[in-house]
């Protein structure tokens, strides 16, 4: 899987971006040149040497707030995806094995979760449960869980009924070996795709919630909260919302790109795609195509 991924430039773009973003999330507050909460007398200033991205309506340094705010925004996205992974995958896998009543119940619950207007529910849940970050992450995670439920259930259904798994067990393969060789790759790829998608959606939802002041209250710095305060001063600083917006868009784009790359390289379709790319590359270089090259693509 990894050796296939490595050959695609879009995989490298996505992972470099995501590693940078993750570093930003972990080290953000430490990198901030000023105190993100300390105001000054210089209000709504344009970018300068002391304040690289200018100051906001209370004279706080925008760059510092952006860096300090990335923690909640980015780690929040990963947390949400991780919660959705646990809440969705476990019932998804169990629905195949635990009998029809459980299957019917979980299917209907997931149908309902898909049909609910997502953001309204997230807002209602978070605010009613006490308006904290933990509540926000939990409610968004639960609302995103159908993404994982569906893919894990589909994967478990195909694997559990496939003859090659049965054949592998019959011919003496140990459970660990069967899991690694046959079931792992089949289940991991769709769950990886769903995780990248869920993290992208989660980032947008967390940003939306913080924009509304739900989950994290001002003055704590968040990307969404910065947008909310910039909105009031658009007449003075029309460019100010651009910084958080660009960061949000880049991160979401990186997650989407990663999901696309994973989808393109997994399974038979990925094998064909990479074979095509190898052929095209060989043709461009004007080399005679060697038979090993076409055969070597795993």
């Amino acid at each position, binding site marked *: 899987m990894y050796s296939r991924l490595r050959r695609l430039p879009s995989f490298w773009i996505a992972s470099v971006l995501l590693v940078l973003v993750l570093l930003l999330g972990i080290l953000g507050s430490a990198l901030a040149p000023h105190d993100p909460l300390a105001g000054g007398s210089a209000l709504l200033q344009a970018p300068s040497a002391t304040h690289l991205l200018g100051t906001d309506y209370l004279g706080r340094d925008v760059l510092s707030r952006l860096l300090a705010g990335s923690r909640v925004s980015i780690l929040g996205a990963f947390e949400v995806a991780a919660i959705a992974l646990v809440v969705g995958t476990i019932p998804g896998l169990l629905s195949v094995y635990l009998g029809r009543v459980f299957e019917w119940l979980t299917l*209907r619950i997931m149908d309902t979760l898909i049909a609910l207007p*997502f*953001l*309204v529910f997230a807002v*209602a849940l978070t605010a*009613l449960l006490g308006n904290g970050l933990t509540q926000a992450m939990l409610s968004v995670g639960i609302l995103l869980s159908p993404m994982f439920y569906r893919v894990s259930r589909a994967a478990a259904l195909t694997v559990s009924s496939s003859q090659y798994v049965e054949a592998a067990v019959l011919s003496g393969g140990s459970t660990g070996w069967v899991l690694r060789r046959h079931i792992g790759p089949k289940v991991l790829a769709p769950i990886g795709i769903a995780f990248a998608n869920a993290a992208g959606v989660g980032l947008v939802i967390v940003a*939306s919630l913080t924009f509304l002041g739900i989950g994290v209250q001002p003055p704590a710095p968040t990307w969404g909260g910065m947008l*909310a305060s910039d909105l009031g001063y658009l007449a003075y600083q*029309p460019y100010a919302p651009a910084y958080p917006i660009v960061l949000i868009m880049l991160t979401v784009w990186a997650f989407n790109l990663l999901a696309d790359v994973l989808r393109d390289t997994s399974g038979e379709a990925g094998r064909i795609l990479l074979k095509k790319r190898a052929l095209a590359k060989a043709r461009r270089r004007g080399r005679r195509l060697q038979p090993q090259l076409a055969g070597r693509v795993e």
Partner: protein
Amino acid sequence: MATATEIEVGRTRVARPTEARTAGSLRWKRIGLAILRPFAVFVPVFLFGTFITFLLGTLTGLNPAYVQLGEAATPDAVARLNHQYGLDQPFLVQYWTWFSALLHGSLGSSWIDGISISTLIGQRIVISLSVAALALVIGIVVGAALGGVAAILQTTWVDRAITGFTSLMSVMPPFTVGIILVAIFAVQLKVLPSAGYISLSQGLWPWFSHVILPAIALSFDMVAGVARQLRAGLVSAYGQNYVLGATVHGLSPRRIFFVHVLRNGGGPALALVGLSLPNLLGGAVVTETVFGLAGYGVFASSSALHGDVPAVQGVLVVSIVLVVAFNLIVNIALNRIEPSAKRGV
């Protein structure tokens, strides 16, 4: 390999062996099934959705005394108000009272000021629905135009430009688009108002000018989704042998596109339209905040922050009903366009 019609014919034969099977009677049976089957899917969704909604309200442990009196609530007052709102009864009794009132169209009264929640939501839902409906129209029209053009001109630079543009649109959350639109059209160009709402009865243009920016902000995601799905569907339909056959027969490109390709390749895009209403309604919360609209999304978040449980439940129930009703309509349309979709419902 039996076709859909054969299976359908087989089914009716088993069900009514003596009745004459004309084309007309089969047709009505098929339409009836197409309408009934989605109901079988959506009734459980409605029941579960309302149950989860009610459970949510109870789990929060909030009570009207806390909302109305705050820290000054005495145990006496708490008990009195709980009794007044029927909160001292067992959970299932409460649920049944609430649910039967719901079926009669009553959503209870607000814990804050005692005003009927149906009235409160009724005033606000018009605003949200005008924005959502306009966004839906923009999403379908622009999305279909972009997807159709990209599919007709596939593998040209136009196709690549549209694909790039739609993937850019899909990574922009509605509230960022809203802020950008306000910055451009309201603050810099000063051509459209940045906030507020004027009802349709006061003129078409004033209404339209207040609704168009939030609608555009809300529609981005849908435009991107519809364009992408439609392009993929149409491209795969163009690759089918019957299109080649139609071309060889000398049918005009226009007829091939509308009759053969669009009808067969449009299913996924239409299904996406059905799934996008929850997003449009959910996005209302943030776009209404950006554009200062007193819609139901803002009502939901402010009621939730104030702990007004019946109001939040009311909003959620109304949105569930809207989503379920819209999905039913889309499902029926899908069945009419694409008979094969019926088997998978």
